[in-house]
């Protein structure tokens, strides 16, 4: 469904070229200024609109800043225990194989407490699509170290900077999941500038098409900002992604099976 159909421009002779996707509700989000969750939500909503999937989608929300995504995405949804979204999505997809089942998870949810659930969902080749928002910090609880926090990164639970001696090393989950035979499409994108946002949108569309075609597990990792808990301005946060996250978490295609290439 075209998003333009749902809105009336109201000015004679003017064509509406940009509006709210039908898959986004009218609700104002609770996100901090400069947080890229809003962009990620919008991209997912646009993709659901463009593929005509809204009315057959079931979204599984995580625990974390995006816990309320079910109030923003205009589709059937539920809210999983922390990290368990892939297991819950499995229960939904297995009982309704013709529906589009998506999870939206942050890095604490997916890489830390939910590492087992995401790993096994990918290994089983569950026909679900995962949107993984990685901002290298626990946002909702106030900026603690995440499994994705960078070496030396200052957080409220690593005040002197993350020590790899004491806390080990960040996990690159896209690279990990790409090793599993059940995954069909695993890519990392970034939301720090327009070029990368456009690439992210394209990958979100592809990931959903992978599920529609029944080709296996698909995940799009989205490098994101957390200006509030990083303690910098929204503009600086975008630069921080580029300067600090991209070298450690390179954007790229980590798994694209032959079947996916043929889409």
């Amino acid at each position, binding site marked *: 469904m075209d998003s333009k159909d749902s809105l009336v421009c109201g000015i004679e002779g003017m064509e509406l070229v940009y509006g709210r996707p039908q898959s986004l509700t009218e609700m104002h989000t609770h996100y901090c200024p400069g947080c890229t969750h809003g962009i990620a939500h919008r991209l997912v909503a646009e993709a659901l609109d463009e593929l005509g999937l*809204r*009315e*057959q*989608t*079931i979204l*599984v*929300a995580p625990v974390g800043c995006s*816990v309320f995504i*079910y*109030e923003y995405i*205009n*589709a*059937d*949804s*539920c*809210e*999983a*225990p922390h990290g*368990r979204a892939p*297991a*819950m*999505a*499995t*229960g*939904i*997809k*297995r*009982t*309704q194989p013709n*529906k589009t089942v998506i999870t939206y998870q942050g890095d604490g949810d997916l890489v830390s407490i939910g590492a*087992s*659930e995401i*790993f*096994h969902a990918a290994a089983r080749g569950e026909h679900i699509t995962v949107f993984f928002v990685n901002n290298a910090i626990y946002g909702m609880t106030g900026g603690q170290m995440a499994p994705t926090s960078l070496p030396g990164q200052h957080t409220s639970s690593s005040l002197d900077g993350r020590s790899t001696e004491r806390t080990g090393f960040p996990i690159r989950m896209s690279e990990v999941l790409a090793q599993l035979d059940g995954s069909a499409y695993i890519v990392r994108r970034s939301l720090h500038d327009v070029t990368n946002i456009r690439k992210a949108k394209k990958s979100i569309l592809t990931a959903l098409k992978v599920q529609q075609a029944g080709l296996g597990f698909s995940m799009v990792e989205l490098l994101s900002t957390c200006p509030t808990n990083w303690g910098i301005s929204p503009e600086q946060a975008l630069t921080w992604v580029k300067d600090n996250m991209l070298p450690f978490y390179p954007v790229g295609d980590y798994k694209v099976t032959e079947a996916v290439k043929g889409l």
Partner: protein
Amino acid sequence: MTKELLKGNVAIAEAALRAGLEAYFGYPITPQTELLEHLSKRMVELGRVFLQAESEVAAINMVYGAACSGVRTMTSSSSPGFSLMQEGLSYIAGSDLPCVVVDVMRGGPGLGNIMPSQGDYFQVTRSAGHGDFRPIVLAPASVQEAIDFTVLAFDLADKYRHLVVIAADGLIGQMMEPAELPEMRPSSRSAPDYALTGAKGRPPRAITSLHMAAEEEEAFNIKIQQRLGVIRSLEQRWFEYKVDDALLLVIGYGTAGRIAYTAVESARSKGLKVGLLRPQTLYPFPEDRISELADQIEGVLVVEMNAGQMVEDVRLAVGGQAPISFYGRMGGVVPMPDEVLSNIEAAYERISARYLVE
């Protein structure tokens, strides 16, 4: 239908799918594994969902997802695995979703052992994980009851949109006895009005256990408590034997209740006025009947395969109207009928001694 020789775990599994089980998720753990094994074969034969999960944590969350789809769904485990499911159970409770969970209890705490136990009584009856909630808990004492209660469990779960636990001990799961299975029910159940099926031609639905405002969360809790009030008034179930003239009432459930039955029979043959009450629902606890009998009896003996957990519910129901004694074995030890009988005789003697004094 005729009786077949059936193992408890297999009987529960077969009864569940005949009651309309559409999706099962589980993880192997002794002494319930035959349940999972049986469903791995039968559910696939019937074109239904069977999935061996990576953990009990994942299994209960898969059940949570399937319950969101509006299908009849179940998992099964044994004590340590049931402990792992507490998180998911709490979310299911907080989402008003129906499902059935089988706990074939074993010795504990910790890894404990694989012998029959009733050590999970508190865990199954007091809550479903964190928060104010009580599941409906059914306690079978035979393979036939395990079958009947499995069918009942699904009906109660749907009737109240409530979590139902079948608390069987390892003996019920492992023993074989003749029992009759129900007919296969037609699986024509349509999706309930809360199911997430895609917002086609209707506003989106959200299933969540999150209520940020305290008043909103309290209102949800009040709704749960009102439902539990109805359940307490309508769903208390028990079996009783020779209670009419009893001076001593023996109370036990599951395997302990069955052994107590044998001991009560022996006591009666010796001329002792002893009766048995075997709770079939551990929640709601058959408190009304016990309270009523407490007027007539002179003493109570509670028998459990634990350190004394249900005895607390008995004390509440008896309300000080009669002295209560307890006999329990722990760690997976199953009491013998003669042990229970000697405890009956001792309790009976105390009653008689009181009579003589009076």
